[in-house]
């Protein structure tokens, strides 16, 4: 057999697997998004209704827009907080930083935990009766004692953000340490001798050279924030009310709690749009030439 054909034959199994596990469900979900698909009734999916599901989400469902708002704020806040804190930590921990030590390996620990586990443990820690945070805050500011964090809409959102940021900082810190370590020391020293103070060195020399890595970090974190599900599910289950209901959670609820697969599929496809945009930029930075 000719090499030319053999090479295609060899990748066929991989292509098939990807097709069966990723491409096909994607296409099928697109098909379902144009149907009335109720799991609770026979003859699934029941009927094709064109863009009716999309119409419904856009014009008749405040809950959809609520989850869009929650997800947007959640994404912006967690991306900003995680990246900023991770960058600060990375500056301290990178070679030549002030805190260089063996703690780097420990850093990866929170990241090794599953988001669902993080959700459960934070739920315990914020429990108003026996929670760690509750005891802590109660001691420092007595007025904060016995607040039930997770039943207040704003506080519940804050707790979700804290849990997310806590879980993601280590990984982003490690990536940024790598980025910082690859910046030639000479360039930073040259700037110091040229007369730049700490902040100017950072702004003029460190940051521009870190930019490609930072962009990847931002986009990657945005993608993961957009699709946040497990933590929210374990921590607040979208509540109180729908105060912490992210899009993924909304999709899950409609699809598997209420059985509205067709409608869920259409919302999921709406979520694909921002994902595609982010993925495009991600790929652009990762595979950038030069």
């Amino acid at each position, binding site marked *: 057999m000719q090499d030319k054909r053999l090479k295609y034959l060899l990748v066929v199994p991989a292509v098939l697997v990807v097709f069966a596990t990723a491409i096909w469900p994607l296409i099928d979900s697109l098909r379902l998004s144009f149907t009335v698909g109720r799991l609770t009734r026979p003859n699934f999916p029941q009927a094709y209704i064109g863009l009716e599901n999309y119409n419904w989400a856009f014009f008749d469902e405040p809950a959809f827009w609520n989850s869009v708002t929650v997800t947007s704020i959640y994404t912006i806040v967690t991306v900003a907080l995680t990246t900023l804190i991770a960058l600060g930590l990375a500056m301290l921990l990178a070679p030549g930083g002030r805190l260089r030590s063996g703690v780097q390996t420990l850093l990866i620990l929170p990241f090794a935990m599953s988001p669902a586990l993080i959700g459960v443990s934070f739920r315990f820690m914020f429990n108003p009766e026996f929670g760690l945070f509750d005891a802590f805050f109660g001691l420092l500011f007595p007025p904060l004692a016995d607040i039930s964090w997770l039943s207040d809409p704003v506080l519940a959102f804050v707790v979700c953000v804290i849990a997310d940021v806590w879980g993601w900082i280590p990984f982003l810190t490690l990536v940024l340490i790598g980025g910082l370590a690859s910046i030639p020391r000479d360039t930073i020293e040259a700037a110091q001798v040229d*007369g*730049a103070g700490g902040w100017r060195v950072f702004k003029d020399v460190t940051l521009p050279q870190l930019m490609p890595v930072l962009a990847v970090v931002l986009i990657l974190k945005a993608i993961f924030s957009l699709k946040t599900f497990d933590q929210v599910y374990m921590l607040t289950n979208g509540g109180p009310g729908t105060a912490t209901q992210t899009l993924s959670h909304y999709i899950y609820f409609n699809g598997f709690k209420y059985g509205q697969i067709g409608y869920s599929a259409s919302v999921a496809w709406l979520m694909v749009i921002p994902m595609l945009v982010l993925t495009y930029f991600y790929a652009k930075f990762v595979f950038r030439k030069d």
Partner: protein
Amino acid sequence: MARVSLTNITKRWGDFIGVDNQSLEINDKEFLVLLGPSGCGKTTTMRMIAGLEEPTAGEIRIGDRVVNDDLPKDRDVAMVFQNYGLYPHMTIFDNIAYPLKVRGTPKAEVAPRVEKAAAQVELTEFLHRKPKALSGGQRQRVALARAIVRTPKVFLMDEPLSNLDAKLRVTMRAELKHLSRQLQITTVYVTHDQIEAMTLADRVAVMKNGVIQQLGTPDEIYNDPANLFVAGFIGSPAMNLINGSVKDGMFVTTGGTSLVKVGISDRDAVVLGVRAEDVEIHQPGEGDIDLKVYAYENTGESVMLTVQFGQQRVIARGDRHLRMDMDDTVGLRLNPDHLYLFDPASENRIGNG
């Protein structure tokens, strides 16, 4: 405009000593060259002056000020890094302009000064490029331009010409010499190229293993070496060093050949040093000793004659019109005015011929 003084400076990393308790006074407007083999502590010394490396012990002054606790940015020095340290994300123009911008030079002044510095290192046509689009030698010139664009208290130059081709190096050397005369700024210049050291320096500090072996004018370093290391390190070809002893006022080689009259009292172990140009080539019988030619090399500007007696080889430099063949016999005479005697144990110089 400032003098730089290092007092009992030591730099240690764990057990390793990079610079060992050295003191050095660099005068105002002086061009001081640090010369020595790789790893002897030249860059380390310079980095301590710049504030990029903290001395383990000792005091550094620039002008009247003790700068040990000053940040690099407050020391008002300009440095050419051995590995250039160019900002890869900036154009050449912005690279050269950076020290001016950071120090708040008025906008209108920046461009003309950058262009002038670029012209001095023949870079004018590359100003819009990024560093990665330049050759090694061109990058090095950018680093040089970034230093000379400003008038700092002190210039620190770490092998700024090492990556230039031979021709450009000669041009840039002259340019630097001219520039330093013009600017009159205290300069510390690191090199391991002796010609650079000899031609540029007001004074040379020869270093080895973190210790300054000799500090002096190029003339002193060349004609009055303090020890065996300096004698052997300076000069090309290296000074001839012949082992032997002194008996009855004569230097006798280990092989037993009585070579030349010297001015020190009898001694068992002595090293005689003589430069190739101080070994005169005569007809057989007309020198101190007749020897066979071991190798003959014509470099164009002169000829190099290698002769061998016993275990020792001696190189003599002759007139460029001299023609010889291997195994010809010549009479050699060592110029008695330019002989150096060293103690092989301490390696210190103990006298002249």
